[in-house]
């Protein structure tokens, strides 16, 4: 029998499964922290989390609440500073980067700066922080998003963090490192990737009980569809147990 789980728990499990063992991942606040912690306990004991303010290779026994807190360098391999980790990414050492945002477009460009006009904003958002650097320098980026039409937009209000910009060749033309860019979008409705040729977002799999039509309805641009769209496995009993007992015992993300 399948256990009940919350939408956040599903997102955490899906993001966790994308993380590979024995590589480096730039981890931001929130769901990526829980996903990295879960991945270390499940299939990726040698995942090396890298945090913006200098923590490298922490063992995530307690959930960090901020990218600079003590838990981001708990039993870590190194505790340096922001220049070191950002320059490490710029030199090509960081495989995965996790991102979020208020808006995303079909090329995976993200907005976390402003809703409305920059000079007279309707909503002033937190700003780039490390997101622009992660989106510029990590080899493959994974965005984690709530999936609806207000967030998946044809034209976003502000490009904070580069995806594929205006399409094929645009990152290289802008001067961004070659062979880098968006890799996956893990959402409340499914998992998406990008078409190799057009660099446009493509639906790869849907979450349990979600139809392809529902994903299309909740996307504000024309979505490409993979030839064979699968259904994601719900969180397993083991994933939920580790998540609830070890990763997030206080239930901050339940």
């Amino acid at each position: 029998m399948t256990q009940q789980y919350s939408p956040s728990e599903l997102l955490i499990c899906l993001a966790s499964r994308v993380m590979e063992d024995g590589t480096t991942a730039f981890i931001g606040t929130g769901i990526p922290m829980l996903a990295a912690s879960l991945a270390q306990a499940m299939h990726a004991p040698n995942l090396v989390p890298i945090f913006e303010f200098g923590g490298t290779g922490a063992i995530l026994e307690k959930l960090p609440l901020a990218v600079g807190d003590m838990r981001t360098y708990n039993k870590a391999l190194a505790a340096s500073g922001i220049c070191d980790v950002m320059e490490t990414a710029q030199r090509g050492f960081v495989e995965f980067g996790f991102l979020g945002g208020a808006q995303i477009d079909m090329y995976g460009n993200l907005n976390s700066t402003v809703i409305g006009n920059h000079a007279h904003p309707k909503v002033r958002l937190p700003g780039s922080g490390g997101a622009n650097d992660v989106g510029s320098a990590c080899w493959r980026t994974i965005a984690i998003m709530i999936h609806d039409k207000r967030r998946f937009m044809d034209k976003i209000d502000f490009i904070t963090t580069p995806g594929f910009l205006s399409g094929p060749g645009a990152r290289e033309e802008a001067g961004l490192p070659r062979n880098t860019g968006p890799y996956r979008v893990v959402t409340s409705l499914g998992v998406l990737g990008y078409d190799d040729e057009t660099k446009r977002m493509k639906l790869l799999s849907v979450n349990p009980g979600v139809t392809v039509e529902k994903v299309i309805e909740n996307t504000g641009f024309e979505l490409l569809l993979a030839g064979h769209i699968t259904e994601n496995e719900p969180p397993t009993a083991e994933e939920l147990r580790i998540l609830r007992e070890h990763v997030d015992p206080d239930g901050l993300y339940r």
Partner: protein
Amino acid sequence: MIFHHYDKILLFKSKNEMNQFTKSIPIFEEGEATLIQPIDLDGFREHNRKKTKKLVDKRMTEKEAIDKFVKSGDYIGFELYGTVRCPMSLTRELVRSGKTDFRIVGQGVHELDLLFAANMVREIDFTYISLEVYGISDNMRRRVESGDVTKVVEWSNAAITWRFKAASMGIPFIPTRSMLGTDTLKKSSAKVIECPYSNYKVALLPALFVDTGFIHVNRADIHGNCQIDGISGFAFEMSRACKNLIISTEKIVPTEEIREHPDRTIIPYYLVDAVVHAPYGSWPGEMSGMYERDEPHYKMFIEKQKTKEGMDEYMKEWLYAFNDHQSLLDKVGAKRLQELTL
């Protein structure tokens, strides 16, 4: 292709045509914003020459340090980030000082919440101001969306720190591969050029000099030799980019203790103008290896900051009610502080 030649803008059909004409480095793109803080390398050198190199006693109170080294309109900066290793005792004193109209580097959340609440900020080099897992800062939103903050210039996190790094190197800019192709660059003061050695396109980031910087550390001697435990954030770079630097420290230690572990010194004394002894100086935030964040207090603050009225109450109760840091600690209470201590 656009080329800025003194006050003229020249247009060319190709890069080659332009290079033949100018023998100059073309600017492909530039951010719209003018610099909030001008670059004066030789002025900085001359300022640094005048700073004492003697091992003198620089201890003073928060109030004395702010009276002496801060004036309204200054460009000011804080380290570290979120609620971690924040110079909160200095921040509270700065708010009480009544000095205002600051230009700031928008990095380091909790200090800025208090400055926004007191409407002391006019211009921001903005990278990230938020409450992390607790959502967007309503203090920041109220001031930016209302226009109380008159100028916002965008940067990435690495860009801000690399700008400090350029200043710390004593050079006017640093080339990087961040911000390219985005609106973040358009709303910054970065410029995109082609590297004259390699043909890579790079974003040039202007050096960032701070009039007065505030950094909280684990321990320092009376001269200002500072050691930090755990991650060093951007203390190394920012401390070297400050004209004036005020340090608050959990502990004052003998210089001999510094000399026993010189490899731990992140900030050497000659950078420092004032040393303020502030135990629990990052409260309600945390301090590496010493104490944890006061989560119930911080959650209470999160609720209060949602409305202007709530935040005004918070400021009255937790900032304006005191004349100094010790009286605040007395209110928090020794028992509570002990519970937070690791």
